[in-house]
Structure formats: structure tokens, C-alpha cells
């Protein structure tokens, strides 16, 4: 019984936290950041993220997408660059994403698209998608 109560309290806490984060994420004017450096958007996002890293685009061996990961049960922000001045999208040698598309380089590129995903069934899927820059 004690464990159930603790678990319930934990889930409630997680959900409330996620809700607050979701509200913060939804209130950002992402259109403003289109065609501006990804770094400027990263600074505007809630800073409570677990990690920021790069991934491939929609094709496994071409990059990159910047992921802002707020942790399990919480929304996740995907930022796609529209320029490739500081990195090379193709990854023919199948290097790990952090090597193929270093975050420090990719975040200097300009924002093309922003997508927020939430896994809650009650949320739209995706939660928000702002597209696109030049």
C-alpha cells in the first residue's frame, strides 16, 4: 500500500512537472527563431533539459537533427537546421552522430523546423510543429 501511494505520488509529480514544462515549451514563439542560429533557440528553451545532442535526419545516414531531451515522460524538442555551413550532412562511414554531426557545430546553423513530441495520449501528435525556414 505504501509503495502504491509512493508510486502514485511520483507519477503525479512527474505529470505535473511535464505539464509545466509543456506549457513553457508551447508558449515560445518558435517562428521568431526560424532562420536564426539554433543556439539562440536553445537559449530560449527551458534550461531543465537532461541533454542536448544530434541525431540523423529522417534518413539514418544523413544529418542532423538537434534534440533537446527533457527526460522520460516529458516532451522532447527536435530542431532541424536549414543550412549546412558548419557540418556535412552525409555520414557514409556511419560514425556515431556525436562525431558525424558535432553539436557545437550544428547549433551554429540556422533553424529550419521545430517539432515537439509528447507521448501522452491526450496530447496531439506531434504536440507542435513549426515549419519552415528558408
Amino acid at each position: 500500500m505504501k509503495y502504491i501511494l509512493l508510486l502514485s505520488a511520483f507519477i503525479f509529480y512527474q505529470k505535473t512537472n511535464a505539464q509545466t514544462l509543456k506549457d513553457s515549451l508551447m508558449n515560445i514563439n518558435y517562428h521568431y527563431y526560424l532562420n536564426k542560429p539554433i543556439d539562440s533557440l536553445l537559449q530560449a528553451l527551458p534550461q531543465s533539459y537532461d541533454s542536448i545532442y544530434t541525431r540523423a535526419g529522417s534518413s539514418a545516414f544523413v544529418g542532423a537533427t538537434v534534440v533537446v531531451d527533457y527526460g522520460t515522460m516529458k516532451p522532447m524538442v527536435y530542431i532541424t537546421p536549414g543550412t549546412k555551413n558548419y557540418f556535412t550532412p552525409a555520414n557514409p562511414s556511419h560514425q556515431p552522430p556525436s562525431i558525424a554531426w558535432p553539436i557545437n557545430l550544428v547549433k551554429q546553423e540556422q533553424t529550419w523546423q521545430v517539432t515537439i513530441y509528447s507521448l501522452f495520449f491526450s496530447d496531439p501528435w506531434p504536440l507542435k510543429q513549426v515549419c519552415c525556414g528558408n
Partner: protein
Amino acid sequence: MKRKSDLYLVIYATLLIIISIFSISIISPSCKKMDVHVGNDTEIQSRFFNVPNNEAAVVHKVAAALKKQNNIGGFIPSFAKKEGYAVWDKSLIYYPEPLTNTYGRNGENETQDTIEVFTPIVLENDNIVNGFFFSRIVGDSVALHLYRANDYDLFPNGKIDSTVVTAELIIIKLLQLNDEIFGHKKYELLDSNAFKKEIHGKYRTIELDTNSNNNGGSETGRIKVRGNCTFTCYYNQTPECISTTNWCTFCQLYYCYSNCPSTPGSGTGTGSPSGGGGGYNWPPDPPIATGGSGGGGGSSTGNCIPGNCRTSSTLIVEGRVPCGGCGGGPIIILPPEEPPYIPSEIDTSDLRIISEKISNQSDSLFNWAFLPGNNLREQGAIIVRKNGNIYLKNIAPGKEGKTRPPNYSLETGEELIGYYHTHPVDTSYKQRSFFSDDDFLTFHSKAITIQGYMMVLECGNKRFIVVVENLQKYNEFMTFNRKMQIRNRYIEYELLPQQSTYYTNGQLASTNAALQFFGSSSNCGLGIYEANSPGKTNFTKLNP
């Protein structure tokens, strides 16, 4: 003498007692009856107007406006007994359009001060919505309307995005409200005139679809309509179906599957302001077509003369509810539990037909990326069907390794059957990976509700198709954990590097990684197919 007077006294006292008892026995029942009557009405009214304190302010406003009408006409006690009680906390609230949405309009200072509220009415101890109050609130003004489930058929049949209220629009709203209160989603549709264009056949099921994606709220108000179409489907023949809006290519003499057009606006509230989505716009009532004699104008009780229903508008005004309640309802009945729907396996000849029809467009879009200046950019589109034709629509170039979000807008008569994109990665097909985790996320937004929904990937040397073969199985397979895994790119970063061909043939490796994740179609509900160049129409199932 004294004994005589005592006797008189006893007789007098006895008489007095008898008279008192008699008087009480006469007076008491009438007093009691009156007390009960007054008490009931008060109790009914108190119960009817019992709006939870934490309910949205607009709902309190609606209740107050209705109370004001009741103070004039006193119709609520009778109305509650005959029509039901308002379920205030299940009101659907539509606030004005938000100032910012996902596709621009940001910064526009557009405001609309019209709020629309739909409050269900349910009879005591009943389990179906009997009607609803529709309230349009502009500033302090509240216009109250009453729509009875029983009278829906007094409205004209037509589209749900019509400029006037139609029977179909009332049905949709009743289904949404039923879902809000009772969680009912499936009904047998009894009225053969309703949704005539969307559903064919004798046995017709109507189902509320609350899972569709939209940008405004948690529910789109869309419905999906299933109907038995055995008499209209001729498998592997063309035209397969009489209807232009079914999925008979896949129903194999068994099932039709279709989407109705979405209701105007999008998004619903669930009793709280935060639940509200985009603006709504409940249209005006059509001109009165029934009754003929005119006149009428409502009553304090809502009674009406049979055959003379709805002689007034739906407006509640001057302390009177409109006449009605004698229409041809009910619309629907709750169906008995249906056995799980397990469709026949997709026949590859269906995929061949689709692939053939989009083949030229698909090759052209793929090759476009290799033209000078196009920088290997991906192309995305949706696949639609109209009048037997299948084609790509809303084509838009993305970036290298990234598509734009699909644009799902359709024209009248068009049906969405899938999502399409290309993977034009250099000149070596080995880098042209299979569907990525992101692609599966995009696919999932529609696939969770649409049997037969597919995504097609053009890789030049191969064309891949993933199709929902068993919607129920697919929904069971896509647990929260699996969604989380896909979101975290488990296939791409955990399974893909494990493949033996990871460094030598990325396309094969990524295909095998996805197959490892999804497994057999009997397990995940998805059929995964590939067809090879040059024709790219002879599909082989990769996950039998």
C-alpha cells in the same frame, strides 16, 4: 348533577377529539402533497443548476442565463423529468482562435470574443445523451439553443461542414458528448438517410475517432465510419466500389473504411478552458421546413403536437423552451460488443496497383534531388485516392535528410491513403536507408486510427511500403514503451549498429533493424514490403 355535568364534559371532550382527528385526516394529506410537490420542484431545479464551482466561468454564465429563462417560464422541473438534466461538467467549450498557431499568424492581434458551449442533457438513470444546449456567448450576451436527439431528423441531411445545421452535424455533436460522458464510441446507425454518401450497406456502424491528430486540441471531432460493403466491393476489379470514399481495395469483399470530412474548426474542450482548441463555428439553423402551419413558438414545458414539431427555432427565449421531442429519433443504438475485426492479409496486387499509379511521380521526385542545385533534398507528399485514381498530392521539398511535415489537406472527394517521401542519398543505394524512427513517428500519427493506412518510401533502387494490416494489433503493439523507444531512435541507434551489414550495406542493415523491432505482421499488425527496380511494383512481404 355533578355526575351529569361530568358526562357532558366527557361527551364534549370525546366529540372534540373525534372532530380534531377528522380535521387532521382531511387537511393533512393535502398539505403533505403540496409540501412534496414544492419540495420536488425546488429540488429538481437545484439539482439541474448545480454547476461545480471549479467549472469554467463560461459554463456558469450559461447556467445563469438558463436560470434567468426558467425564472420567467418555470419550465425546468418539467423539462428535467421529460428531457433530462444538464451535465455541466461535460460541456464542450470552444474558445476563439488562439493568437498563435503552428503555421504562422504569429503576432497577429486577432481576437474573436465569441465562445461556444455545448452542454449535454441526460435523462435520469439513462446512459445516452438525450440532447444538448448550445450557447453562443458574446461578451455578456448568451444566446441559448436546445437541440433534442429525438428531433435531429427534422434538420436536413447534408455535410457536417454545411453553412446550416444538418442532421449529420447534430449526430456528430451527440456522439462527441456521448463519448465525453459515457465513453461510447461505437453505434449502429439506424437512419439510412444519415451519412448516406459515406456509408453503404445494410449494417452500418458509426464510430467516433478521438485519436486523430490536430494542432488545436486533443480531439479533432472527426469520425470514422465503417459500413459493410460486400455488395459494392468487387475485389481486384475496377471500379472496386461504387463509393468514391471507401477503402474497398483493401476490404476484400468484407469491409469498407472511410473518413468523413472533419467538422468545422477543430479541437474541443472537456470542461476546462485549457482543453479548448481552435475556434469553432456552429452554423445557424436552416429555415423551418417542417410543421407547415407556422406559429407555435415554444412552450413552458416543451410539449408539442405530433406532426407539428419544431414550429419555432431552437432558441430558448422569453422563458420558453422550443417545441419538439416528437421527431423520428433515436439516431443510433449502442451496438453489442463486436468481435475483433481481423481483416484478411493485404494482397500484394493491391500494393502493385498503388505503386503503378504513383510510379512516374515517385521516380520523378526522387530523381529531382540529383539535379544540379537541388542538393539531395528529400521530397514529401501524401497519397490520395479520388474517383479510382491514386496520386501524390501536396508535394513539398524538404532538406537533405529531412522532409517537411506532411500537409494532409484534401479536396472534396479525396481520400487520404498514405504518406510518401524519398531518401535520395548520394549515388550509392547503400546509404539510402529504410524508414527511420522519425518516419515511423510521422506514420504513427495517422496509422493508429486508419486501417490500411500506408507509408511509401522511394529509394530509387527500391520502393518500400509499410501498411496497417491489422489496426487492432498495431494499436496493441504500439505501447507507450515502444513509442518511447521509437522516439529515442532505438531502431537506429541500438538495433541498426548490431546488423552485420551495417558498414557494408546501410539500406539492408536499416531494413533488417526495423524488421527486428516490428517482427512478424501477425505480431505488430503492420505489413512491410519492398519492390525492386526497375518496375518497383512486384512487392515481397518482408515480415510474413
